[in-house]
């Protein structure tokens, strides 16, 4: 197996609010190998974006990290000072945000914004060199280099998202975090952007973390999938394995509640209830109030997130014994 690039250990993070502490991330651990891609999937408020912001140390002021470590190679990102961290951002880790419109400054040309990032993080280069680099980046993401002197409003949604990806790539980072990179795009454009991202990742051998609520998008682009529920890690395995034999009931529920245009038209099963309020989350396994397999122990104790073999992790007291297809057959 390739070298581990990123290792998150027991990360716990709370947001302080007037109503009490929001326990947004609870004992989350995962690893990412060099050149690998991980998809982080879950519903809104499950802590996906909080994890991304923690990795980049871009958390708002009311967030406090209670416990845990984030290792990038041998550096604990959480122990760095702000000045040291600034050297890591863009060069080592960069991010593609959800709303591409808001990540670009409307009063500068797109090219100038990327050049600014280059100058800040890589250092002085001549105007010609910088423009040359931007042109290369544009080619890489499939934009015409002549567009670099245009303003963001002259771009379509898909082009903007590509420009933001070009910017994230500008300093050759080891890791890119893409938070819902295609959520606002139409399917055909989404497909193009996803394929481009996959292609670039393979070509440059970067590691990627994709964050999305859409398990279908995640299934397309990542080798491994991590499923989160209410701030906790529910399950993590290779994409194939997760769909073939999910262990956590929530993973199974997510899959069966996702309509698909392919395959047999199986009955969609809604989950009872709603995601919990994280100010006072359920005790033990946070999924237990909605779980059809829950027993007394689920309410009392948090199940350890452990390896069930073949790098298939799950946190569940009563993991599913059979492949998903067999349960679907019965239902």
């Amino acid at each position: 197996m390739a070298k581990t690039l990123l290792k998150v250990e027991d990360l716990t993070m709370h947001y302080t609010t007037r109503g009490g502490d929001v326990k947004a991330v609870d004992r989350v651990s995962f690893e990412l190998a060099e050149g690998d891609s991980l998809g982080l999937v879950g519903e809104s408020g499950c802590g996906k974006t909080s994890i991304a912001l923690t990795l980049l140390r871009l958390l708002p002021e009311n967030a406090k990290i209670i416990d845990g470590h984030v290792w990038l190679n041998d550096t604990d990102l959480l122990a760095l000072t702000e000045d040291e961290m600034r050297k890591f951002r863009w060069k080592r880790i960069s991010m593609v945000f959800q709303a591409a419109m808001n990540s670009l400054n409307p009063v500068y040309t797109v090219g100038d914004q990327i050049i600014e990032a280059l100058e800040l993080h890589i250092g002085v280069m001549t105007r010609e060199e910088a423009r040359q680099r931007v042109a290369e980046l544009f080619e890489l993401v499939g934009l015409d280099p002549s567009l670099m002197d245009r303003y963001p409003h002259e771009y379509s949604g898909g082009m903007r998202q590509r420009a933001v990806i070009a910017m994230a790539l500008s300093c050759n980072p080891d890791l890119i975090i893409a938070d819902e990179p295609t959520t606002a795009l139409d399917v055909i454009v989404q497909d193009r952007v996803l394929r481009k991202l996959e292609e670039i990742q393979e070509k440059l051998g970067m590691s990627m973390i994709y964050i999305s609520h859409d398990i279908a998008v995640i299934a397309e682009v990542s080798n491994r999938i991590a499923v989160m529920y209410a701030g906790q890690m529910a399950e993590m395995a290779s994409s194939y394995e997760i769909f073939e034999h999910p262990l956590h009931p929530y993973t199974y529920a997510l899959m069966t509640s996702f309509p698909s245009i392919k395959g047999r038209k199986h009955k969609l099963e809604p989950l009872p209830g709603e995601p919990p309020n994280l100010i006072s989350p359920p005790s033990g396994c946070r999924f237990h109030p909605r779980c059809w397999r829950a027993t007394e122990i689920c309410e009392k104790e948090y199940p350890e997130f452990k390896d069930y073999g073949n790098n298939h992790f799950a946190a569940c007291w009563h993991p599913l014994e059979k492949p998903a297809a067999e349960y679907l057959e019965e239902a």
Partner: protein
Amino acid sequence: MPIDRTKPLVQVKDLKKYFPIRGNIFAPVKGQIHAVDGLSFEIMPGKSMGLVGESGCGKTTTGKLLVRLHEPTDGEILIQDLNGNLENIAHRKGKQLKMFRRNVQMIFQDPYESLNPRHTIFDIVSEPLAVQNIGTLAERQERVADLLNVVGLTPAHTFMFRFPHELSGGQRQRVAIARALVIEPNFIVADEPTSMLDVSIRIGVMQLMEDLADRFGVSYLYITHDLAVARYMTDHIGVMYLGKMVERAETEELLQNPLHPYTKALLAATPVPDPRFGRDEIIIKGGVSKPIDPKPRCRFYERCPISDDFCKNNPHPPLEDKGGGHYVACYKV
């Protein structure tokens, strides 16, 4: 409601809606956006039709035309009235329009914006009754309580006098559904009713809408960008592209056997929640343009992988039946 089940519930004939473009309100008209351009289809009682397409294809405008939130530029909208007669409501006004709305309601995409934050749930759900002047206050309360139970907001009395901000997104969409049903319409236009909801909530709302369709015999025009959702919610699907319907067929037929190159591209681009399925490469070029004074030829010509000079020099192809009620508008099929 006595409706005639042998006749279409909704019949749209050559429906058009153009929006003028001006530099400012005093400037002369510079051009026309052909948002909906010659749409024809029908929906039988109890059946649901899906309208799919990318943003800007005119699907929401079509929905708004059918509930007459827009007045059509041209064409007919025939809808069965309460006596089972097909009436053209395309240009109705005032009292006549209000009468038509006893029969047709709409559910909007965003439950955070479609509910008045200063009204209680009771006010919101009973408003159609108040507008149509149906029942006494006590009767309305009873009716609203019944419906809240039906849509799964139970016990109803704990929800009646709460405000929208106290409810979650899924609950709000249930309120919107209750409001649409309160006057027992035969036809509901649902514009992306589940696209703002989380996965685990979405299925509940989709199933609720299906159950209600069976129970009350309601037909939906289900507007969505997501073919997978349409697969579960509709009997027929119409695919729109720049104001035109390019393909229409029974849902499974359309998904298994798409004929129009645009439908093929849409299907190929839809992500499948299972890595074991491979997907086809998409072959179309470019992005969606705006239908501003379009050239008199196939709207899809510029992006089409199989277009030729014939497509270039001829008007937009008519929607033709290729057998078994599978309609396609393409010269090359």
